[in-house]
């Protein structure tokens, strides 16, 4: 669940053309409408340009995470006309700009100037932190209050669409496009397109780290097997003296490499799953939302196989050296 839904049908400003044809879609699609309006927000003689949302608190409760993301004070009630809720980023900005370092919290007074010139005083009822940059940079008043101030009725600037099955996103987007609702149809990634670039960057870093880990694993396994062959040199010599061929010695250390690889993979997978599960419960907060790890099965299998084979291959060189050594030198430990 997000603060914005999966798809937003958006018009510039407050529109009377944005219609609700979308409500005719199948089950599993939930809708909510919002007013968006640019406002000037004044606090302790400082004024900031902000983005105000007129919302229906009762409907939001079942649709978005807004009412569940209160970090200070409370959330709006349907009939509130003199209260606002601030996104965390707005609250932080006010605190920073006020120069007194005091956190803007519930109970503070602010003033808002609407685009139609109407000025209203509000009490900050609460602060919300939804972890996404759009909602945390917004100010929320009730739809009822915004309609009163702007003198509008049954208008909207955006219709937010929430899907029960996120996998149906593109299909539903296509359906909505066919309904001629008016306005731009944007998915979450359309709205935050830079995220795709960020994720590509993260993916490149992940690939580099994987390559480095693979190389490190191979080097470590190679060193372990080398140390083992050195410490067991005398035994290798004896083994060969009593009739073991090079292939026996080679396979002995290759099996050892394979065992180390399996143990390493088991340990690594355990740690990875532990961290993944921990992060699922305690996600990393980023400006565009919580970062929750996702394990792609095929990629995980590829990595496991790559680690296994690179480890076994890494043991090959020291194992071959040990196997090909002169028996008498090995027995003497040279």
């Amino acid at each position: 669940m997000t603060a914005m839904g999966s798809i937003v049908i958006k018009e510039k400003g407050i529109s009377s053309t944005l219609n609700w044809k979308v409500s005719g879609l199948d089950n599993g699609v939930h809708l909510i409408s919002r007013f968006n309006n640019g406002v000037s927000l004044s606090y302790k003689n400082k004024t900031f340009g902000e983005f105000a949302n007129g919302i229906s608190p009762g409907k939001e409760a079942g649709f978005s995470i807004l009412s569940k993301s209160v970090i200070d004070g409370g959330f709006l009630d349907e009939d509130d006309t003199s209260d606002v809720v601030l996104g965390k980023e707005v609250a932080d900005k006010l605190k920073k700009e006020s120069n007194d370092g005091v956190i803007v919290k519930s109970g503070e007074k602010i003033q808002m100037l609407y685009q139609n010139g109407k000025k209203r005083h509000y009490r900050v009822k609460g602060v919300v932190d939804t972890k996404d940059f759009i909602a945390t940079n917004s100010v929320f008043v009730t739809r009822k209050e915004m309609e009163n101030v702007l003198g509008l009725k049954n208008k909207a600037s955006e219709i937010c669409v929430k899907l029960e099955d996120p996998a149906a996103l593109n299909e539903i987007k296509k359906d909505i496009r066919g309904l001629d609702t008016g306005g731009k149809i944007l998915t979450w990634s359309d709205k935050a397109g830079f995220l795709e670039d960020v994720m590509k960057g993260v993916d490149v870093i992940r690939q580099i780290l994987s390559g480095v880990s693979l190389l490190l694993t191979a080097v470590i396994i190679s060193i372990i097997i080398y140390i083992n062959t050195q410490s067991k040199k005398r035994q290798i010599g004896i083994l060969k003296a009593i009739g073991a061929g090079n292939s026996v010695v080679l396979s002995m250390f290759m099996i050892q490499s394979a065992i180390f690889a399996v143990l390493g993979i088991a340990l690594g997978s355990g740690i990875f799953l532990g961290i993944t599960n921990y992060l699922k419960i305690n996600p990393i907060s980023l400006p565009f939302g919580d970062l929750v790890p996702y394990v792609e099965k095929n990629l995980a299998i590829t990595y496991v196989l790559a680690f296994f084979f690179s480890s076994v291959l890494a043991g090959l060189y020291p194992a071959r050296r040990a196997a090909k050594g002169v028996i008498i030198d090995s027995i003497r430990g040279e």
Partner: protein
Amino acid sequence: MENRVIRGSGDLILETEDLKKSYMTGHVETHALCGINMDIKRGEFVAVMGPSGSGKTTLLNLTGMLDEPTRGAIYIDGHNVANLKESQKTKFRLTKLGFVFQFFNLFPELTALENICLPLMLKGKLKRECVKRATKLLSLVGLKERLSHYPSELSGGEQQRVSIARALANRPALILADEPTANLDSTTAAEIMSLFKQLNKEQNETILMVTHEKEFAEEADRVIQLKDGLVVDEYHTDTSEYQAGTQSKV
């Protein structure tokens, strides 16, 4: 076998012909063996004696194909082994030779029984056969109560007995023993010599033993004396006083 050259009478198990071995120490060449000619008959017990640096261990290592000669030929059971490929040498060591080392050289992670099973398993024997043979050999060397003991739980003499049993595992044509008593006290050393003698007389095992102790060398049928890489003396000993035991061939 590719390099097979059948030599001498079927009576000879080992022959060396002008066997030489030199080492380079920096730019200095050291001659460890300077042309050894030696014959050992099947069922013979031969001791090689000599002062330190005379080349006796080098001779044993070359005979056991643990090292390469600089020149000369070695015939084991009629085959010129100096020209064998590495894989052929491995097979030869496994089937024709048994090694007994000065420091026993048992595998510490394996029990007495497992140490003896090892060469049998390398030869491809089934586990059941390996255990049966190893048990019989441990019984032969007087350690049937020590089957599941690890080397660290055995005395030096017992470890050397396990080592001898391991050497016998694949019924070798020749047992090569490198100073097998050097690391033992005199009583235990005498017991080990007695065991060698018993194996030679009762099991008809052919033994080539390197030792620096004259007392033990003279337990053998013949003594070859080395000095500066050359055979300087060779004589037969009188071993007629050996009292045969009741052990049957294993």
